[in-house]
């Protein structure tokens, strides 16, 4: 594809430290790359490379990309921050973007990395407000409590959980939330079975944070006539065409707008204004996270609850509410919170 490129085209590469097709952060970042490509055409050369799950190979991918004079090297997830910091020291002339990941302490003064994290807990808070609101009203829900399906008991996922729980508690202080972990990001059947178990024991609205496993929750919701909340991509849209009945069960999805960030960063690249050396935490205020409001939610959720969501959103944006984060909490603290809300 390189033949048609303008001679002074900008070059950007996205290194996925996993495989594409997760319907989550990797796909989202790739989408952002492609959106930018669509916008700039021949003035931009993009490359998307999967580094695979073998962590010992990531370094050599990063080194290679660093030696091939790209204008920007994009990487995402918490798993790669530390490695990126080392590489960035090794190649001080190369510029990098780290999305949805922290640089290790002490690496803050690296002037060739622009890093961004998302306050997923803020968007999850809104989802919690919505779910608890629906539950409190009780008009179109069957069940007594909320549920969540996670892939693993890990910080990124617990961050969603914590926001969800605190949001729900803000509406219904005694709300209960059942939590199950599947032990896999790829096992939709198991996701469905775990969700069925939750729905059958009183969960009215489930929230899945488990990649492809999580999609099983949607099928369980369809089968039992309960509600589901998606994550990281608009899960309603995945099935809107092919399975409307299933799509109708997805009230909303909690989004990290990685694609937006990627596309915006490429805009900045063309303006020569990438904020290298800076760290940004994108929350509701910055539009980095959010929930999908124009899908099923528009018709299913009452105006009253919608108002509550909007109020919470404003409060968070104004800084009146500071949502707790799971990052920095140890296992026992998280466990204590889970125990407190167990149905």
């Amino acid at each position, binding site marked *: 594809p390189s*033949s048609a490129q303008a001679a002074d085209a900008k070059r950007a590469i996205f290194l996925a430290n996993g*495989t594409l097709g997760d319907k989550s952060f990797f796909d989202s970042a790739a989408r952002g790359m492609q959106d930018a490509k669509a916008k700039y055409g021949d003035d931009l050369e993009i*490359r*998307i*490379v*999967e580094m*695979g*799950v*073998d*962590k*010992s*190979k990531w*370094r*050599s*991918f990063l*080194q*290679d*990309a660093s030696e091939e004079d790209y204008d920007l090297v994009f990487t995402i*997830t*918490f*798993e790669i*921050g*530390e490695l990126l910091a080392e590489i960035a020291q090794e190649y001080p002339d190369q510029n990098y973007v780290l999305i949805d*990941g*922290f640089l290790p*302490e002490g690496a803050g003064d690296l002037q060739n990395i622009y890093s961004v994290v998302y306050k997923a807990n803020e968007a999850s808070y809104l989802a919690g407000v919505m779910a608890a609101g629906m539950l409190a009203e009780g008009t179109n829900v069957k069940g007594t409590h909320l549920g969540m399906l996670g892939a*693993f*008991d*890990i*910080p*990124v996922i617990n961050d969603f959980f914590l926001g969800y729980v605190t949001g729900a508690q803000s509406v219904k202080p005694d709300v209960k939330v059942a939590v199950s972990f599947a*032990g896999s990001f790829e096992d939709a059947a198991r996701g469905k079975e775990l969700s069925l178990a939750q729905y059958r024991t009183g969960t009215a609205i489930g929230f899945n944070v488990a990649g492809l496993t999580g999609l099983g929750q949607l099928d369980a919701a369809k089968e039992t006539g309960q509600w589901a909340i998606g994550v990281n991509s608009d899960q309603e849209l995945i099935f809107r065409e092919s399975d409307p009945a299933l799509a109708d069960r997805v009230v909303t999805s909690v989004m990290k707008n990685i694609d937006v960030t990627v596309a915006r960063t490429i805009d900045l690249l063309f303006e020569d204004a990438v904020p290298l050396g800076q760290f940004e935490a994108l929350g509701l205020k910055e539009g980095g996270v959010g929930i999908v409001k124009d899908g099923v939610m528009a018709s299913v959720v009452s105006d009253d609850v919608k108002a509550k969501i909007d109020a919470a959103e404003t409060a968070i944006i104004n800084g009146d509410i500071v949502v707790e984060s799971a*990052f*920095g*909490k*140890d*296992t026992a603290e998280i466990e204590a919170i889970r125990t407190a809300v167990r149905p």
Partner: protein
Amino acid sequence: MIRAAFASTAITAGFCLFVLLVVLVPVALLYPEPGEVLSRFLLGPFEKTRYMGNIVELATPSMLTALAVVLMFRCGAFNLGVEGSFFLGGLTTAAMVLWMPLPPLVGIPLALLAGAIVGSVVCGIPGIVKATTGASELVSSLMLNYAAVFIGLFVLNYYLRDPTAAMLSSDRFPAEYRFESLIPRTRIHIGSIVAVVACIIGAIYLNRTSQGLEVRISGTGNDFSRHLGLNSVALNIRIQVIGGMIAAFAGGIEMLGLYSRFTWQNTTGNGWTGVIVAIIARDNPILIIPAALFIGYLQVGGDLVSRAFGVPTEIVSLIQALVMICVTSVAIFQHPALRKFVQGDRGGAAQ
């Protein structure tokens, strides 16, 4: 004799290349510059010291896991627990490095040893279960692999986790515990030397020691070893424990060689690679070394074309799968014409 051995090695190598070409060419033709794709895949890995380093880095753990597999297979145990042993070995070594405040000179060997001991259970238990109950070690080791990962994750989450890290991982290892690179621009570390030496020791053990002979005899079935009065049950268990220790040791070495903290959330695949390498090496410890390097070479070549031309990693996996089958193809390797060529005029002498 030597001429024949050499010719056969040369033919094997040439043949691997041939198969690779046959599988690769159609894929390369899908791209605008097929010649470049080919040369990137085949020659790219030798372009930079760093790439050759990558080959060695990838081959290092699989040499050791393959050695473990070879020892167990040769003893007649079809144990696939190396994957789980590798994982637990890495985890335990990490835990020891973090928990035991000892000077590295003592601490590293101790940590590796502890890793080897704890990790050995994944291979050892199926061995013991087989000996006491007759249950297939193949299946119980496959199952224990999964169990090992989840139990390991439990330990990681509840006892080792660094709460300040944004991912599920242990604390950082103190810098002095990490292996240093032996060759600039690569991450080849002491573990690579250990792995090569281990394969050589493995070959000597199997072929040149009394116990190695017993292992080989036990591997041929029960009747002969019973006839000789060998305690092959005990030997079998011992070899599976040793196999587990080697695989777990490999996990520890990988951890200290290439990582700064424990971050595995699933098995790493090094055990399966070990099985593949062992089969390609035809259960011969010395041949493990070239076989592991060959598989490493395939991976690096594949990574290079996937980086440079956007060839999907899946295509690279397909190529690797086909090449693996072809290099173990008896129909091709023992084809009469090929044998005749290798053996010269040795044929008709068998009377």
